[in-house]
């Protein structure tokens, strides 16, 4: 039995046999050879076989995920035929008299490092492709079989990290969980895990050569733990918990299509927080009433240049169309603080949470802001869109925003481009905004309370600092009073107020929020039905 910890990407629990992928290259041994021609012909044979496999993968991907994603396998085929790559392998076989798989492993490593060291994030990520093709060649040389994903039973996938060719081949119904040594929250593994709602642990210090396919494993995404070859006791316990989770899940499924209404008739909107167009599927799947916070940063992150107006317009348009008339609240660029983007050249700040970020950047760099506003106003024609501005501290900022919006409208009129002015609201995430929420309410259509920042600013506690965890009380009375104040001030002006921070999904507070008269709670898609259940079991009328 071996127990290891890692970072959990998705909370869930799984029990099943392990399949180990891409074991490390250690097993490629250097062997002195005498017949170089034989090695070269083996290499050629393996090359042909690899090309054939990639062609099949390309066709499979083309059918299942479309041309754009399938193209990677065409590129893989070309990389395999690359002269420099092949020359280096040939040379090594001929001059050093070594076996082909060793020459491939060394050459693959060299090219891997060349890409891994480039200053461009996109090119860095291509290192994984080099590794992918080199491993494929080696497998075909040694005759080791590729994992047969078609005939595998539902399994826990254990890997260094997942390569694109692995992710596309996996039958999604046959994956119980992921456990990887590497990978970030944006790696293929994490994205896939969140999409599929299966437990996944990344950054697990597992020695892939010690783990055998077929071993049993328990993956606990709640505690961030994996147990290989678990005892009978642990298996029974896991089995019980899986059953419980399944029952909970089934129960929640029955809540789809039902209203978010308390026993005594008080209703509230439950919307979803999302961070990319791809997340809309989960919004619909979990039956959210709308999107209460669409973080637009995804358009800016992981790139080298600013997204164009057209690119943004297409993304916003797609989301509002997919939501078919349901409300979609898009928050304008909230970059800075913990979200840094190289090409913004923001520079290092001593206190980024209180620094040059969000609306402050937008008001100073009007060009960037206007591009986004143009895209938003244009997309507004296609559905029920609202704009939300982050990090507001004063009425003047709103006035300034509105004058920029007016400029954008004039420009669009001048260009003859159709647009609509959507509902406009603000995030309430600074204590200043709370204190003047009565004034702010007159200028905007709605408030959405960002409890994460509001809590850290109010309690003066840096959320990233683990040493402060003992002092951190998310249910602090100060925060709850602030929320009440904001809601009351909104209602006095006939406006609505919601919560889009983590606190909105805190089931211990749902009753209190209902009593305060909060109009909307926006939470992660996976929390929608849990929250609905809590609401439907609540009573808000205070008993005398």
């Amino acid at each position: 039995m071996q127990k290891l910890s890692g970072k959990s990407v998705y909370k869930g629990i799984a029990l099943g046999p392990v399949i180990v992928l891409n074991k490390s290259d250690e097993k490629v041994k250097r062997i002195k050879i005498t017949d170089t021609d034989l090695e070269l012909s083996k290499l050629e044979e393996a090359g042909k076989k690899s090309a054939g496999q990639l062609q099949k993968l390309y066709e499979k991907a083309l059918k299942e995920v479309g041309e754009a994603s399938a193209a990677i396998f065409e590129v893989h085929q070309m990389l395999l035929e690359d002269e420099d790559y092949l020359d280096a392998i040939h040379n090594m076989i001929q001059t050093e008299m070594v076996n082909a798989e060793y020459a491939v492993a060394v050459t693959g490593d060299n090219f891997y490092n060349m890409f891994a060291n480039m200053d461009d994030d996109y090119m860095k990520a291509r290192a994984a492709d080099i590794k992918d093709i080199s491993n494929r060649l080696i497998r075909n040389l040694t005759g080791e079989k590729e994992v047969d994903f078609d005939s595998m039973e539902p399994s826990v996938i254990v890997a260094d990290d997942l390569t694109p060719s692995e992710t596309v081949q996996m039958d999604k119904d046959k994956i119980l969980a992921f456990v990887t040594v590497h990978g970030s929250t944006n790696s293929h593994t994490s994205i896939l895990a969140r999409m599929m709602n299966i437990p996944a642990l990344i950054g697990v210090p597992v020695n892939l050569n010690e783990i055998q396919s077929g071993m049993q494993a328990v993956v606990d995404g709640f505690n961030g733990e994996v147990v290989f070859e678990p005892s009978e006791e642990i298996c029974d316990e896991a089995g019980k918990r899986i059953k419980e989770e399944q029952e909970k899940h089934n129960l929640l499924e029955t809540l789809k299509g039902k209203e978010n209404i308390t026993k005594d008739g008080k209703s509230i909107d439950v919307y979803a927080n999302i961070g990319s167009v791809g997340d809309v599927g989960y919004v619909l799947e979990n039956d959210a009433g709308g999107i209460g916070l669409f973080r637009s940063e995804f358009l800016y992150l992981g790139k080298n240049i600013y997204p164009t107006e057209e690119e943004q317009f297409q993304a916003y348009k797609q989301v509002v169309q997919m939501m078919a008339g349901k409300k979609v609240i898009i928050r304008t660029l909230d970059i800075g603080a913990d979200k840094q983007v190289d090409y913004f050249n923001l520079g290092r700040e001593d206190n980024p949470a209180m620094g040059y970020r969000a609306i402050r950047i937008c008001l100073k760099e009007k060009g960037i802001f206007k591009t986004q506003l143009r895209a938003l106003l244009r997309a507004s024609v296609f559905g029920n869109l609202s704009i939300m501005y982050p990090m507001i501290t004063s009425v003047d900022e709103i006035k300034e925003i509105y004058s920029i919006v007016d400029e954008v409208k004039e420009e669009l009129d001048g260009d003859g481009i159709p647009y609509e002015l959507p509902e406009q609201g603000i995030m309430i995430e600074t204590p200043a905004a709370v204190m003047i929420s009565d004034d702010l309410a007159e200028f905007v259509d709605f408030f959405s309370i960002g409890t994460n920042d509001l809590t850290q600013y109010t309690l003066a506690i840096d959320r990233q600092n683990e040493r402060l965890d003992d002092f951190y009380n998310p249910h602090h009375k100060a925060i709850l009073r602030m929320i009440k104040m904001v809601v009351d001030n909104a209602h006095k002006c006939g406006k609505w107020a919601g919560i889009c921070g983590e606190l909105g999904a805190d089931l211990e507070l749902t009753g209190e929020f209902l009593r305060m008269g909060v109009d909307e709670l926006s939470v992660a898609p996976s929390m929608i039905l849990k929250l609905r259940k809590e609401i439907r079991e609540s009573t808000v009328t205070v008993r005398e």
Partner: protein
Amino acid sequence: MRKFSYTIKDEVGLHARPAGELVKEAKKYKSRITVCKDGKSVEATKLMAIMGLGVKCGQLLEVSVEGEDEDTAYEALKTFFETNL
């Protein structure tokens, strides 16, 4: 030998896929085709080398064509860059 300069307009730059297309195009001709960025010159038929240049949007490339079919190749490559990159 014939030469032309081209500034990449494609937002993603000369990434894997467009680089692959370029290699395919370059392989159609007998001429030796090279792509040069910041004094570093690589053959257009070598995908890893092209990707290794890390060409981004807005960067200037110099393309040289030399060989028996250089006129045809020159025109074709020029059109290729203008329509794809």
